[in-house]
């Protein structure tokens, strides 16, 4: 971690553990995870299925609680948050992107993106401007009146990204955002997120085991069996890997 990031730590976990009951036994999803994530990072939690990526992401997103240890997100101890406080934090400061998009099916693209702003009580003029900006970022301004069912998987995920970033959250959590997309769409979406990270200095945390996503990451935290096995900065050689990957996908 760079020294300047030490002062702007947004997410910090200490000995974070999560155990799920599994019939008569238990499943250790996270085991003493210690992790700090600074402002503006573009970080990936990588590892095989069942390694605890989504669980960690859910705890960081205040959607779940740790069994033991501590998770501090944007100055709030997750384990101490009430339902209402957790909802308030998610509403105001955290954006989510899911593998299955989780768009509201009866709303149009515009209404889906507008929804977080409605919850924040923004007035209609500001809402309109922010929604149009967000749709332009993801190149979907012309599909504003479409319903999710009328969009491709890539377009749905771009709507989900627009919805996640429209309120300009400090953290965006993305769980396998490219898992349902083809290579071309995956690269397009990752490029969009890199751009948003650069322009808005939003912290992005991914849970992924997709090599295409990994090629865009600035920091890669590898989880195995609920523990951090490796925490590494990604070298510039990644960029060449990315280019190779994109060339392959075009072919």
């Amino acid at each position, binding site marked *: 971690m760079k020294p300047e990031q030490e002062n702007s730590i947004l997410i910090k976990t200490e000995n974070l553990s999560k155990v799920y009951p599994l019939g008569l036994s238990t499943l250790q999803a996270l085991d003493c995870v210690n992790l700090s994530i600074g402002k503006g990072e573009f970080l990936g939690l990588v590892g095989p299925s069942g390694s605890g990526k989504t669980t960690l992401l*859910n705890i960081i*997103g205040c*959607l*779940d609680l740790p069994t033991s240890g501590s998770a501090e997100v944007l100055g709030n101890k997750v384990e101490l948050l009430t*339902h*209402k406080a957790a*909802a*308030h934090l*998610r*509403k*105001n400061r955290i954006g*989510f992107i*899911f593998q*299955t998009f*989780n*768009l*509201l*099916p*009866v*709303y149009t693209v515009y*209404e889906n993106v507008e*929804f*977080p702003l*409605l*919850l924040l*009580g923004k007035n209609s003029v500001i809402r309109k401007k922010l929604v149009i900006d967000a749709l332009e970022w993801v190149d979907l301004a012309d599909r504003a009146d479409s319903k999710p069912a009328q969009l491709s998987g890539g377009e749905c995920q771009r709507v989900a990204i627009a919805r996640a970033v429209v309120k300009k959250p400090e953290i965006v959590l993305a769980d396998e955002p490219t898992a349902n997309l083809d290579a071309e769409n995956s690269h397009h979406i990752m490029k969009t997120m890199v751009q948003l990270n650069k322009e808005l200095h939003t912290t992005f945390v991914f849970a992924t085991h997709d090599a295409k996503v990994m090629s865009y990451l600035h920091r890669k935290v590898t989880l195995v069996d609920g523990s951090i096995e490796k925490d590494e900065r990604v070298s510039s050689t990644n960029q060449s890997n990315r280019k190779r990957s994109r060339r392959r996908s075009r072919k």
Partner: protein
Amino acid sequence: MLTLKLAFRNIIGAGLRTGLNVIALSFAYVTIIFLQGVYNGMNEQAEQASINAFYGGGQFWHKSYDPFDPLSFTDAHAIPPEPLQNLIITQNAAQILIWQGFVYPEGRFRSILMKGIDNVQKVLSIPSHLLQNSDQTIPALVGSRMARVSGLKKGDEIIVQWRDVRGTFDAREVKIIDVFTSTVQEIDNDQIWIPLHRLQELIGLADEATIVVLGKNIQPKSEVIGWNFKSTDYLLKDLHAMVKAKTIGGSIMYTILLLLAMLAIFDTQVLSIWRRRKEMGTFMELGFTRLRLISLFTIEGTLIGILAAIVGGVYGIPLLTYIAHTGWAMPQVADQFGFAIGERIYPTYSIALILGTTILVLLVTTVVSFIPTKKIASLKPTDALRGKST
């Protein structure tokens, strides 16, 4: 306000799903009101028919008259005193002489009541005017039930036997000049109607009567010595008791219908809300509190109830109004229900019925939307997002 706005947006956005829910609910809503209206109409008709046919605005009974004791009839007669005479002359009351007799239709003995009625009376709906057109034979009217059980028909002549005021047996042939149809059994079962003056002559009770029936809107001004006033409420008490007993049955029917409607609403709402649990997870993820989530989905249910009431009103009002005018044909067997049911029932819908049913349906919709939502809202957001149900 935002929650209401979002709920409205959700149900409009749901399109077909909302449409089906609304139509199914409106059917239940209109059906409940219709059936309860039929039931109310039936009760009102029975009461009105009884008043028109026999009870009028109340009756003065001779002090010895006991309708359940035929032996009392020999003592229960007198010339109506002046206050009642005035009402009879002005056709605001009708006098009836009641006497026990016997007939032998098809060779079988049958105990009957001979009822003498003034053929110019206008108080009761009995077709007494037909008793005017008579020659030397005594004209008689019987109701359709009496005709059926006795095998009598228009034009038949039968022997009627009785004991006169001195206790002497007498008999005479009467001619059935008409068989009238009435829903009121009190003027039909085992009765023969003959002209009042002829019955008075036959028995030897000139100008006397057993009861005096007042016109519908006539109120007794004072007590009449030797005669007891029986109000319409008193006369209808058996009918009311029967209606009350049937009302309990009707309430059970109403409750069953409501429960069926509730089940339909519950099914559609549970199905709809269950299907949307991932959507609920998304709402949680976007920052909805549990309370807000429960409010949103409960309000959606209530709005569907309101829409159903509006849609039900759109087709229900003309349909129910039409049926209220044309009536609802009753099967033949309805004649044996035990009280006056017409060939057609004209449903009546009171404001209380419509408002009560509307409020009840809205309440039920709200409750059945609240219960499954509350359950799903109590899930962890991560479970809801995965579409888990427990």
